[in-house]
């Protein structure tokens, strides 16, 4: 009796289940969307939001999806730098319409860039680098005529660099009329744009339920052309194993952020395509040099570079999730150094420490208790021990660790740094810049005072010549690689898997380089 009843119940319930495939006109993506807090380009700065922006909005210029270091005219048809190198005049593309049907006007460009500075939310720092403030931004954005808009700045940066910033998601052009029709109390439409879109990208937000689903529908009037699939459904599936099952069963077309174990399970399956895409995310060990005399000693920094078991972690511990990378610009960025001069060599590290008279060195490593941080930290604990350095792990939730590090309340930390925009300065201004003006750059967090590198970082943003810029960044990377309180060790890869029948999906190195419009199945 007691076995019969559950059997009947299961049999009954199973009759309701039908093997489903994804709808033919919809791209179904299984990923975690718990991080998303806003789909307003002036606010959204988390992975899920940023991945959506390129599909919802367009910028004046955008990276070529197939070769991201090349910027392509998008909403601008052409541009001209001013004679003083402190302004750019853009000619707007003809006949562009937003998803609302409103035509693109210079006012929309002025509104979109101005509101970023005036709202002063998370990603606004990308544009305030130009010297723009709430008070002066309006004077830097000028309508020339119905087809032309001029952007000027006071900071000592080149037009090339400004174009990189204008290609970032925060510079997305928003339909002023739609946004302002839904504005509340001087919020420039922010509260509405959190869950709606007003752009000219290939898709628009049809439905957004936090922690549940983001549904995009085609914007047939997009200047980018109508997308091949009518809808994109991004559903929140927090557990990677469940994402893999959905993909295998054909209930999802793409499963994002899988673990190495999920990728191993998908190996050899003919109906799915696993992919490991390098991301602009570097994992590095960082020391607070004021925490102890040993941590301030460059010999200790050097020894640490030989105590990081790069290959062991990338190939054996976290199979396929990382590649070894030892410079502060990730592979794929303009000017990135991709040679990896250091290998795990405890004997050499011991010799360096002995020569510097450093004995019984130990430090506390503050680290997020989430994978892969804790796994890497445990591997480091073992590899440093072989070089005679004792590492005590201090695990905490990631926000707690971040707060402690930003308050200098730590000795060492293992963390990840993701690029904020697609220009080498995004990382140079973190690793090699400490202006001591209240900016909590990575160098500041290390208490590392670097007037010479500061100058180089600034000079590189002021340089217009691409080849010269590359040279500058290469030199800075070599300097930081050789002599800094960081050990950059790993570059993350995004592990995703697609159904084999899917074509046209492009994903680039930066989080915003996710392109759905050419996907078909």
């Amino acid at each position, binding site marked *: 009796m007691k076995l019969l*009843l559950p059997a009947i119940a299961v049999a009954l319930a199973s009759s309701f289940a039908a093997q489903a495939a994804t709808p033919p006109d919809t791209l179904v993506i299984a990923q975690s969307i718990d991080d998303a807090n806003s789909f307003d380009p002036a606010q959204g700065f988390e992975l899920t939001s940023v991945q959506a922006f390129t599909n919802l909005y367009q910028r004046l210029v955008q990276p070529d999806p197939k070769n991201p270091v090349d910027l392509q005219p998008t909403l601008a048809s052409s541009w001209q730098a001013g004679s003083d190198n402190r302004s750019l005049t853009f000619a707007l593309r003809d006949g562009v319409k937003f998803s609302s049907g409103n035509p693109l006007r210079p006012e929309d460009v002025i509104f979109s860039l101005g509101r970023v500075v005036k709202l002063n939310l998370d990603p606004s720092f990308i544009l305030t680098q130009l010297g723009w403030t709430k008070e002066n931004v309006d004077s830097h954005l000028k309508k020339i005529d119905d087809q032309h808009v001029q952007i000027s700045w006071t900071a000592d940066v080149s037009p090339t660099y400004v174009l990189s910033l204008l290609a970032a998601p925060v510079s997305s052009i928003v339909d002023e009329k739609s946004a302002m029709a839904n504005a509340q109390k001087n919020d420039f439409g922010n509260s509405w744009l959190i869950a709606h879109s007003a752009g000219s990208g290939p898709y628009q937000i049809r439905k957004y339920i936090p922690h*549940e689903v983001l549904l995009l529908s085609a914007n047939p009037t997009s200047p980018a052309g109508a997308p091949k699939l009518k809808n994109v459904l991004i559903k929140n599936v927090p557990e990677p194993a469940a994402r893999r099952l959905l993909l295998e069963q054909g209930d999802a077309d793409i499963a994002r952020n899988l673990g190495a174990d999920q990728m191993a399970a998908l190996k050899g399956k003919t109906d799915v395509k696993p992919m490991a895409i390098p991301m602009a995310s570097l994992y590095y060990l960082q020391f607070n040099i004021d925490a102890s005399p040993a941590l301030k000693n460059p010999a200790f920094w050097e020894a640490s570079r030989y105590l990081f078991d790069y290959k062991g972690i990338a190939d054996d511990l976290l199979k396929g999730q990382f590649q070894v990378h030892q410079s502060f610009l990730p592979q794929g960025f303009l000017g990135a150094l991709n040679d990896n001069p250091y290998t795990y060599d405890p004997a050499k590290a011991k010799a360096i420490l002995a020569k510097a008279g450093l004995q019984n060195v130990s430090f506390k490593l503050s680290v997020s208790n989430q994978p892969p941080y804790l796994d890497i930290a445990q591997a480091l604990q073992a590899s440093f021990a072989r070089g005679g350095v004792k590492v005590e792990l201090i695990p905490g939730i990631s926000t707690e660790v971040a707060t402690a590090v930003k308050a200098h309340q730590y000795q060492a930390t293992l963390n990840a740094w993701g690029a904020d925009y697609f220009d080498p300065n995004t990382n140079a201004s973190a690793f090699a810049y400490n202006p001591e003006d209240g900016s*909590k750059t990575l160098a500041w967090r290390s208490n590392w005072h670097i007037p010479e590198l500061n100058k180089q970082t600034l000079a590189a943003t002021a340089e217009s010549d691409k080849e010269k810029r590359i040279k500058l960044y290469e030199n800075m990377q070599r300097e930081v690689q050789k002599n800094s309180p960081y050990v950059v060790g790993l570059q993350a890869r995004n592990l995703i898997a697609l159904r084999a029948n899917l074509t046209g999906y492009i994903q680039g190195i930066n989080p915003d380089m996710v392109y759905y419009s050419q996907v078909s199945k």
Partner: protein
Amino acid sequence: MAGFTAEAGSARLFWLRGGRLLTGLLSLAVTLLGLLVFTFILSHLSPVDPVLQIAGDHASESTYVQVRHELGLDQPLPVQFWRYLVHLAHGNLGISRLTNSPVASDLLRTFPATFELATCAMIFGAFFGILLALVAAWKPGSVVDNIARMISLLGYSVPVFWLGLLGLLLFYAVLHWSAGPGRLDDIWIYTLEPKTGLMLVDSWLSGDKEMFRNTIAHLWLPVVVLGLLAMAAITRLLRAALLEESSKEYVTLARAKGASRGRILLLHVFPNVRGTLITVLVLSYTSLLEGSVLTETVFAWPGVGRYMTTALFASDTPAILGSTLLIGGCFITLNALADALTYLTDPRTR
């Protein structure tokens, strides 16, 4: 005279009951307030800086100060708490820092998902738990009893996370008896207009039978996984209570009078353990309501458990306080309900 006494008696009973109700409500309010104070203090003791969470890594000092002021975090703790209470009195639970939407609307959206899952799991767990306990108490020490004990022990000890993944692998991926994670297949997401937030009700009201069937296909597996947890608790505690009750003298007397084992168990012993039964059922139900976060994670179930956990990791204080209040309220109300039920059904407690 007799009439007068009866009137006075019923009036006394009325006041007694009214007094009990008032005391109950008062203790409910005090408990909720205590819970809020505790959660409020705990969330402020957390080493996470909520300003950095909002303003971001690159915020200037002036932005930092401005955000801190906007959040009211520059005020002393008691002032912050008082402000929260005043807003609460106006039905305003604040804005979640993670979703940027009102906490009240977030909870209204997520709670029905948890409520539906927990209630169905409870019905499953109570039905099979009581059945298994009765079967076990029928012949203690027998093979049947041992099997029942083993099943309940398994329900207790197998991690629900693992059981959920295993269930998905077997029933969804291999046997295709169940639908995948989520509450509904993707094709319905376009058409379903949520009215109650309870998918069973909404899909039924939509009149689309396919959708209703699909809801059940999605629901049954997480219900069974979570229900096994409740079943284990109910079986173990109820079995123990039934055996203890069976050792009493009136049972021996009934046996001596020739009553059958089944008659004794069902008509004499079982009704006498109703107090334990009510307590066990209510405790199981409340733990399902608050503690289904792992099941919700595995089955991509957008419930309040996951909402609260995500808020905790992000140090989203308004969301944490709102969810605590909701779950605490449920816990206290259900406990009060259990007390009332015991009071009404068991004259010994009056």
